[in-house]
């Protein structure tokens, strides 16, 4: 890195790679340079493949200042050697920066925030003033003398025009940059303003986080709504609470018999209470057994409750022995029931005795009538 390969070293490497002797390669290189110099001196542009093009470029006479004495001097017109590297050589050298592109700067970015990038164009403007690329020396000469102030200010004003180019700068590269498409690309990471880009990435991350939180909050609300309104509480618990709240004396007909064994019915003498023997029915099935006992069951009101696993058909099967007789339970409670398939769990229903409707579970004709009745019930809610 940053070392120099001399002619002898180059000849050694050339001899090693070409298989020729070192002296032969040295002579070849010297003759190569001499021939090239000769043709350049003749004013021809010499193009060497994979290396570049050499030509002599005329330089106009100009005024300058002698640094040692401070006198104004005139630099005569002369020629200088211009070298334009070949495309493959330029591409190979610029490979580390090949992914960068020229970017247009936004108008709202102040020049102060760009640091030292702005004044760096200064040496390019003054570099062509010298025959060889010594921008520092030329800049000193241009700014040291008061008589040259108008020229230096003029040079500064014409700096963006890039009229003159450095002697060794590749001409195609500069024009290509100025004519390049200024559209930003995704690979341009170095030449974009880091502030807006960082804030943009921060906004994106914040937006993603807010979106995820909003989704979680919405899902939680929907879940809570579903829990409170769509899924009913446990039937036993709700039933117990309801029964505790109501006054039993006012709702004898709606209350289960096993819950209030000491209640009396209008047409039921107190001596007929089922709890006199002390056998309080614990479950509806016990009540079913009691309902099927005989004439005493005809006058007894049996209550049951709709649950998630206990429907009208289940009750009909338990109480009557045939699930097809559910329409009679429905008709008995039609005032508080809607669609037979959409009864709210926890709804207490009265199980009427079959004798009330003159129906027997053993009679096929009655079963058929019950099916017809069920179809009629469904027909009410059919649109």
């Amino acid at each position, binding site marked *: 890195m940053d070392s120099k390969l001399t002619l002898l070293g180059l000849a050694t490497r050339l001899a090693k790679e070409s298989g020729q002797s070192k002296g032969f390669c040295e002579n070849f290189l010297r003759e190569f340079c001499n021939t090239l110099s000769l043709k350049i001196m003749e004013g021809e542009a010499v193009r060497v*493949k994979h290396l570049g093009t050499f030509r002599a470029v*005329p330089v106009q006479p100009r005024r300058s200042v002698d640094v040692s004495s401070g006198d104004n001097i005139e630099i005569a017109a002369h020629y200088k050697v211009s070298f334009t590297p070949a495309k493959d*050589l330029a591409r190979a050298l610029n490979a580390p920066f090949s992914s960068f592109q020229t970017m247009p700067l936004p108008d709202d970015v102040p020049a102060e925030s760009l640091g030292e*990038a702005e004044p760096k164009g200064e040496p390019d403007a003054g570099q062509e003033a010298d025959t060889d690329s010594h921008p520092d020396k030329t800049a000193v000469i241009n700014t040291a003398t008061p008589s040259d102030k108008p020229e230096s200010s003029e040079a500064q004003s014409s700096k963006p025009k890039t009229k003159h180019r450095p002697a060794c700068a590749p001409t195609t590269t500069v024009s290509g940059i100025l004519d390049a498409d200024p559209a930003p690309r995704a690979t341009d990471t170095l030449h974009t303003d880091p502030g807006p880009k960082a804030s943009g990435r921060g906004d994106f991350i914040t937006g993603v986080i807010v979106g995820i939180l909003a989704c979680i909050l919405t899902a939680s609300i929907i879940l809570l709504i579903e829990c409170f309104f769509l899924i009913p509480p446990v039937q036993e618990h709700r039933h117990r609470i309801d029964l505790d709240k109501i006054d039993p004396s006012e709702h004898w007909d709606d209350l289960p018999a096993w819950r209030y064994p000491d209640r009396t019915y209008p047409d039921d003498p107190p001596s007929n209470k089922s709890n006199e023997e002390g056998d309080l029915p614990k479950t509806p099935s016990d009540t079913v057994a009691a309902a099927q006992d005989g004439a005493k069951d005809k006058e007894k009101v049996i209550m049951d409750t709709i649950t998630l696993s206990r429907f009208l058909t289940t009750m009909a099967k338990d109480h009557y022995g045939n699930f097809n007789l559910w329409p009679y339970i429905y008709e008995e409670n039609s005032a508080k029931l809607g669609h037979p398939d959409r009864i709210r769990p926890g709804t207490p229903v009265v199980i009427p005795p079959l004798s009330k409707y003159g129906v027997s579970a053993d009679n096929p004709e009655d079963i058929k009538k019950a099916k017809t009745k069920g179809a009629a019930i469904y027909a009410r809610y059919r649109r």
Partner: protein
Amino acid sequence: MDHKSFIALLSDRLGMDVNEVSALTDTFTDILQKTMCNADAVVLTNFGTFEPRYRAERITVQPSTGRRLLVPPRVTAAFHPGTALRRKIRDMALSAMLKNSPEYIQGIDTKNGQ
């Protein structure tokens, strides 16, 4: 002068075959390119120096639109002619260049007028 003519001229001066000279020239340019890619300079005595030159990023103004452009840094190949070559070009090539260079003639006239 294109590459083919230059190789032919060089082969005449060396007394070698054109293909052999072309192969040597390709090897030479390949070594030159590899050396410069390693950020090393190649010094050819009495001719000049080839060196990679780093150009820092800068801001330019596009004259047609007035927009400011941020030009990325780049590495270019530069050739710095040696003193001998510069002197030769200044002194020895004047006669040949004067024939085909009105700019130079104009420059000489300007100098003489002052």
